[in-house]
């Protein structure tokens, strides 16, 4: 791997002499620096730096707040902008390389800003990235969700093209793709299960999060690994000027955050913790079974960073979370543990580098006690080394390249008991990726980002690999010893994006991407489940490949007060995974025997209209789409709708700032139900009535719709202290949305059968007290 990396760098040095920093023709100099929030030192991501004198010249800050612009010598005025902050201007006399940091002040009446925004006012029109959405964390306060708890993943589901998996689940579908096709990163570490409490909440404590970027399948080459989306979440660095405590006390859980400087202006830390006490409520239940149940979770986010000198900064981030559920003889606990170490290094003002060491672990443990204690443990763990370079060659050309290497360890369900234990069947894999990507301004009106990502996924020993017959019985086994590379899958993922500025406030964008997925989330349950399993590719399970094409039109009105976008996409998937009829996946030691391979396709149109300024802000989005798949062994080889096919998806969000004290917000969502398999008849066998099925996914769940309302009352707001009270009403008109529909004999009349709909939540009020000092 190291050898390939060296060769690649040498090739790049040859074609792009600017990389080595030696060419200084035409007396060009570089100004670079960091864009910060002046009050707490947080580095601002994707802020815009523009050169006033050269229209259309500028750049964005990267994931660490760093920017770099190289210009011919002269006098310039640089402006730094970030939504929610006052713009700052600085004059520079560029006759040598200059370091220039910007410290921006938050806008005083920032409450008028919108929740989901594109950081530069017109970036939705001018930025190359299409199908990208950024969440402005400061304003996520305005949209509480279930139990009054702010939740990033639930807010993402209000965006066009993204639909919730269902109530009681943190999973979501992006452009017709299943939940396991979304890559969720927390400070570069993969989060394998982002759900708390069987999916009612996500593992992300909004207080600890700084930035969320969502790519709907057309991410640039530095990202890869999943077919449908990348959710890149970055934690707060921590206030490097003064100590601060904030938190909230709510009906179901409470949270607290502490942040402060390690050394003022040089380093800072941030720690956030959250704990639920939902079991207080179950103890109030009259049902004895529920009364003796416990369910709770906690999580902890911690981050520290330190500036060694002007060219070097190190970061350490960690996350630890755990859920526990106990009902009589069953116990279930699961959790994520994540740690990343990162080192930002500036080789010179044009070459930024980041080196990361990442660890991520997801484990769940099931305990059963019917006299004997039996445990089942399942685990996925990865350790990763990443090296990323960003070369700011000139304002029209930014080159990104890098590589990463990940070692995976899977333990897909091992049974242990005091009397006997089955062998721990670990699986191992080693993934290597190499990418190069270039952001290029071709003309004043035409920009492109193009690149390619190479992935090599190697299956390692020790282990046994089976071949199966048609019924799924293993017919032969091959065993390999430790460290042997059994098979490697190589894939190439080209990425291309074009932005064509039609006028100052409208543009057309087009993109095509290939995404390859080497590890697969195996699940046939109708809801997110901690027992869903991650499985690596093997001799039988091949990597899934998705090719996505999209085209979009973007237009801003009234000086960017209003935004409109329309995007069309088409996605074609090869080696798509589905499961045999009647498949048994839970704790099946031969899961591969249950897997089928076929094709998928998804296409749709996403429309979105936003109002960004004024007392009333919000957006309306509508997605019309179809997701279907075709497997020889299912439904006679015809195309049938995927479970996640959602014909219509509508989201309406409105936020009204009546005054600095009162804020009202509401959301209304509507979506077509999942495709499901219902019986088309019944029969009797040994006296038992059984359901007769004719096809998979031939029916639909009823449509889902729900209105949420909330009002926030600011109790106190001074320069140093803030406290507020939020009342919220989830499902305000108490609609009984179907969580599941099952079929069973009628207990009152055994001559009949009936359909039972289970609803999780009717109307749910809640109140949360938030504080900050």
């Amino acid at each position, binding site marked *: 791997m190291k050898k390939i990396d060296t060769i690649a760098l040498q090739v790049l040095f040859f074609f792009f002499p600017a990389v080595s920093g030696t060419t200084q023709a035409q007396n060009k100099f570089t100004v670079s620096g960091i864009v910060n929030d002046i009050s707490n030192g947080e580095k601002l991501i994707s802020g815009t730096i523009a050169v006033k004198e050269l229209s259309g010249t500028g750049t964005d800050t990267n994931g660490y707040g760093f920017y770099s612009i190289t210009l011919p010598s002269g006098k310039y005025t640089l402006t730094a902008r970030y939504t929610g902050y006052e713009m700052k201007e600085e004059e520079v006399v560029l006759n040598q390389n200059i370091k220039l940091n910007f410290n921006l002040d938050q806008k005083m009446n920032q409450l008028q800003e919108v929740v989901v925004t594109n950081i530069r006012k017109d970036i939705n029109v001018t930025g190359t990235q299409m199908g990208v959405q950024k969440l402005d964390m400061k304003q996520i306060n305005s949209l509480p969700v279930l139990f009054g708890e702010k939740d990033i993943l639930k807010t993402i589901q209000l965006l066009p093209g993204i639909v919730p998996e269902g109530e009681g689940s943190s999973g979501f579908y992006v452009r017709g793709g299943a939940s396991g096709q979304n890559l969720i990163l927390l400070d570069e570490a993969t989060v394998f299960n982002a759900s708390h409490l069987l999916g009612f909440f996500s593992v992300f404590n909004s207080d600890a999060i700084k930035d969320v970027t969502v790519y709907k399948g057309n991410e640039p080459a530095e990202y890869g690994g999943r077919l449908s989306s990348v959710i890149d979440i970055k934690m707060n660095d921590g206030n490097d000027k003064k100590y601060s405590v904030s938190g909230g006390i709510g009906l179901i859980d409470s949270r607290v955050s502490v942040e402060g400087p390690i050394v003022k202006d040089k380093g800072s830390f941030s720690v956030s913790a959250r704990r639920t006490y939902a079991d207080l409520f179950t103890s109030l239940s009259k049902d004895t079974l529920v009364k003796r149940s416990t369910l709770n979770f906690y999580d902890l986010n911690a981050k520290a960073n330190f500036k060694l000198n002007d060219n070097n900064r190190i970061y350490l981030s960690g996350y630890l979370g755990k859920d526990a559920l106990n009902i009589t003889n069953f116990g279930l606990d699961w959790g994520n543990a994540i740690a990343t170490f990162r080192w930002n290094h500036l080789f010179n003002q044009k070459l930024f580098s980041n080196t990361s060491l990442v660890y991520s672990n997801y484990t769940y443990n099931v305990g059963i006690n019917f006299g004997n204690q039996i445990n089942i443990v399942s685990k996925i763990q990865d350790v990763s080394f990443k090296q990323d370079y960003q070369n700011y060659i000139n304002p029209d050309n930014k080159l990104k390249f890098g590589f990463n290497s990940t070692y995976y360890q899977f333990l897909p369900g091992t049974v242990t008991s005091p009397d*006997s234990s089955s062998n721990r069947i670990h699986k191992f894999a080693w993934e290597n990726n190499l990418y190069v990507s270039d952001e290029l301004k071709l003309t004043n009106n035409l920009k492109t980002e193009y690149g390619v990502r190479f992935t090599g996924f190697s299956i390692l020993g020790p282990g046994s690999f089976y071949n199966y017959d048609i019924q799924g019985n293993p017919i032969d086994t091959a065993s390999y010893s430790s460290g042997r590379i059994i098979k490697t899958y190589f894939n190439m993922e080209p990425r291309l994006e074009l932005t064509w500025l039609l006028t100052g406030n409208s543009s057309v964008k087009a993109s095509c991407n290939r995404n390859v997925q080497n590890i697969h989330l195996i699940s046939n349950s109708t809801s997110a489940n901690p027992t869903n399993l991650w499985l690596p590719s093997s001799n039988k399970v091949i990597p899934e490949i998705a090719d996505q094409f999209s085209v979009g039109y973007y237009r801003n009105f009234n000086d960017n007060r209003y935004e409109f976008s329309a995007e069309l996409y088409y996605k074609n998937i090869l080696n798509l995974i589905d499961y045999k009829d009647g498949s048994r996946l839970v704790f099946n030691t031969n899961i591969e025997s249950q897997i089928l391979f076929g094709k998928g396709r998804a296409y749709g149109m996403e429309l979105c209209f936003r109002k960004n300024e004024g007392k009333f802000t919000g957006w309306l989005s509508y997605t019309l789409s179809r997701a279907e798949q075709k497997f020889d062994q299912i439904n006679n080889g015809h195309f049938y709708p995927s479970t996640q096919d959602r014909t219509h998806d509508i989201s309406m969000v409105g936020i009204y700032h009546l005054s600095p004290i009162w804020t009202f917000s509401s959301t209304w969502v509507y979506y077509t139900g999942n495709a499901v398999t219902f019986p088309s008849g019944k029969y009797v*066998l040994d006296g038992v009535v059984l359901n007769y099925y004719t096809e998979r996914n031939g029916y639909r769940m009823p449509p889902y719709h729900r209105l949420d309302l909330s009002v926030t009352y600011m109790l106190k707001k001074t320069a140093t202290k803030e406290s507020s009270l939020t009342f919220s009403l989830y499902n305000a008109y108490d609609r009984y949305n179907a969580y599941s529909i099952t079929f069973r004999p009628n207990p009152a009349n055994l001559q009949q059968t009936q359909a039972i709909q289970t609803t*999780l939540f009717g109307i749910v009020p809640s109140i949360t007290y938030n504080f900050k000092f």
Partner: protein
Amino acid sequence: MKKPSEIFRNLKIIPGLLIIAACWSCQEVIHVDLNSALPKLIIDGSVSDQPGPYQVFLSQTVSYGRNNVFPPVSGAEVVITDNARNSDTLVEVNPGTYQTNRLQGLSGRTYMLTVKNNHAVYTAISTMPSPVSIDTVVVKSRSSTRKKMLSVIFFDPKGITNYYRVLEKLINSKPPFLRIPQPVLGTFMTDGVLDGTRIDLLTFNQPSFYQFDAVLVSLQCIDKNVYDYFMSADQSGNISTTVSNPVTNISNGALGYFSAYAVRYKKVAIH
């Protein structure tokens, strides 16, 4: 000692229990528009090592919304043969119920069922395993002490893969627990890592028993195809996206199964 995979099929109930725990949840009966599929033939047949006669039941599917009255299929030609050149053409003693005349089931023999109905032919094959005796049956209490469940103890023969079906038939009950027995498909397991050991199978998926019940416990040794059928027929808690008709050992699109099994019984009285 149970086979863990058995238990974990019941883990599906956990999300169900959590639903109850979320105090605001509810369940209600709803009307769902279901298609009326063309009726399909159901074949429910078995041969055992007990003295005959043996029976094959033929019936049809009905629409889901109708009452549980399943039309029997009469006038079919039903033949069972074994691999020792015995053949028995069954006689329809009741509508839809076909009975053998002289066939005697023996362990180790392979039986083939042939059904001819409406110009279609359906066949199935099943090999009868050797029997395994029940050593003891222990009565255990559930979470509430009035409710009982049974633990069936037997010794698994070493060196062969065994598939078991346990049925617990309520043959007598007394007030205050007088009731009609509720049919179940049974409890299923395979020996797996427990091959050759003493197996303690806790049949917690069967309906509860009460004081003064008399129960007939049967331990059937079934073949793999029949085991696979019942494992995919378990529809309690159907929250799977791949729920489908069970994997049948009958050809040509009929539903149901044909099982050649060996059985041993034990009577239990609950005190």
